[in-house]
């Protein structure tokens, strides 16, 4: 057994560290494309010519456990380039090929707590860090210091990179099913795995909704202006109706066993949770002020799905 394990680990290590020719060629192609997209200089900032590249398996070497977040999406390749300017702190660019535009949006949507600054197809700036997405690419542009002048420099570099990515990308198709009335656009989160959902809205440390790489999820927030409360709509798409049904049963059993008939329950915070299955989709509303409110949000979403 031990010999088998050692053999497996040896083979695995060789595969990870050496890569097969096809994968290597693909990586080289992506590298070449990404190098063309990042400028060699922006005004007085110059690339330090020490570019680094990391694929999915190598990404831990660069950012330890933080790599798990990017690996929760279809992340393909990371390019790291530092820009230097005499007498100024350097600016670091981490440029991610996320495989597809939906996942570029997804990783961007993970955190949108700060200021939209008009870079790319969506951006967020705070604490010296600019995050933006465009096409299938996502970027972090980071300054060691957060001063007005550094902010300008970070935004300039971000704009130049964004403009070089010519092809815009599509947001996840699930977004078009969200009821628009009262929706906080900036709070839309897109994900595949339950760990990412938990970051936004903790449901359970166990995967009771059976989420995985092949499931697509949206968490949307509907702030209630009068009460300052928030309703949350979780819309999940499974690869098949059968898998959706299995997840539905699992969720009911773990989260709302006391609501098997009505599919709605008043939870311990005095708010309502309600759920519905439609084909391969699950719709769940959390924290509604009443059962009726929860039902209205479910129905409005269903109308979008039925008319797709």
């Amino acid at each position, binding site marked *: 057994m031990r010999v088998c394990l050692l053999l497996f680990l040896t083979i695995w290590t060789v595969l990870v560290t050496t890569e097969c020719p096809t994968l290597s060629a693909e990586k080289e192609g992506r590298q070449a494309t990404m190098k063309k997209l990042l400028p060699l200089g922006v005004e007085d900032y110059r690339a330090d010519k020490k570019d680094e590249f990391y694929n999915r398996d190598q990404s831990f070497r660069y950012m330890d456990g933080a790599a798990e*977040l990017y690996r929760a999406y279809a992340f393909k390749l990371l390019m790291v380039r530092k820009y230097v300017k005499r007498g100024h702190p350097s600016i670091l660019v*981490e440029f991610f090929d996320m495989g597809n535009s939906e996942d570029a949006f997804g990783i961007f949507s993970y*955190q949108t707590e700060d200021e939209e600054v008009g870079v790319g197809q969506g951006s967020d700036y705070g*604490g010296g*860090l600019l995050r933006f997405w465009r096409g299938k690419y996502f970027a972090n542009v980071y300054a060691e210091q957060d001063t007005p002048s550094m902010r300008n420099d970070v935004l300039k570099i971000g704009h130049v990179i964004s403009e070089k990515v010519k092809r815009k990308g599509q947001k996840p198709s699930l977004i078009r099913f969200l009821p628009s009335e009262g929706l906080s656009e900036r709070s839309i989160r897109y994900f595949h795995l339950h*760990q990412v959902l938990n970051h936004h809205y903790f*449901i*359970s440390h166990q995967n*009771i909704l059976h989420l995985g790489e092949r499931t697509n999820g949206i968490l949307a927030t509907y702030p209630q202006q009068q009460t300052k409360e928030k309703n949350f709509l979780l819309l999940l798409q499974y690869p098949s109706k059968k898998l959706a049904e299995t997840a539905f049963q699992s969720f009911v059993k773990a*989260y709302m066993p006391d609501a098997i008939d009505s599919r709605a329950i008043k939870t311990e915070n005095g708010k309502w949770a309600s759920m519905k299955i439609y084909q391969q989709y699950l719709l769940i509303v959390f924290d509604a002020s009443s059962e009726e409110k929860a039902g209205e949000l479910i129905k409005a979403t269903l109308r979008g799905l039925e008319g797709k």
Partner: protein
Amino acid sequence: MTKRKTITRRDFLRGTVYTALGGTLGSTLGKEAKGEEKVKVVLIRDENAIDSRGQIDQRIIQKMLDQGVCEFLGEKNPVQAWEKLIKPSDVVGIKSNVWHYLPTPEGLENAIVKRVIDAGVPKKNIGIDDRGVLNNPIFKSSTALINVRPLRTHHWSGIGGCIKNYVMFVSVPWLYHSEACSPLGSIWNKPIVKGKTRLNILSLIRTQFYNRGAHHFDRRFVSEYKGLLIGNDPVALDAVGSRLLQLQRIAHFGEDRPLDNPPIHIFVADEKYKLGVSNLRRIEIVKLGWTEGTLL
């Protein structure tokens, strides 16, 4: 082992999640646990640990370490206290943490080295390392380990504390990432570390209480707590640390923002791997020094 209950948001709303987790990691700090022996940890703080330029004061750190270790071991003299931990014949590995954004303070490493030397260990038999421990001759032949790292939130494991600091003692760390890194405690049973840890020190000089940013680091969510948490039970230190980070989030945001993942690995290290005590009711925190904003 009994099957663990599925913990959901509703357990948090009911306030029963910590019961479900076996009483760990929760807000039950003040309640007494009857008839159970308590694990002692020492929290020492000094408001001058960081100067006005943001530099960590080596002299103050040494003083904090000395007072904390003396209190923990019931000694008055720091050298005698360290002689209780380390023999002159020991080969001592100091397992540090080099994470770029919030590393173990160099001043703290130096303070530990000084006392290990004072305990009679030749400098050539002392090593400090993090990512290179598996190839470091000192660590490979070590007879004693000192585990020291800063406390911070961590995307995948909830928090980065003493237990997680030993992940570099395995060659494929991400194999321990499943279920919010719950298997981390198993690493402590591997021959390279088992039974060797003489002291755990959680640096609270600066703590990161919330994740944001490219590497889950944002200086806006770093607190200058100016403390050290010292003990020999890594689970107890992490349980207290986890609670501190939660209280710091509440103090900062006015509400508790949940971690990306609950720090289940602390509870599992207790329940499954028998590494220590995670139940806050069974942990006695001896507090020394600066008291402003202690939270705990």
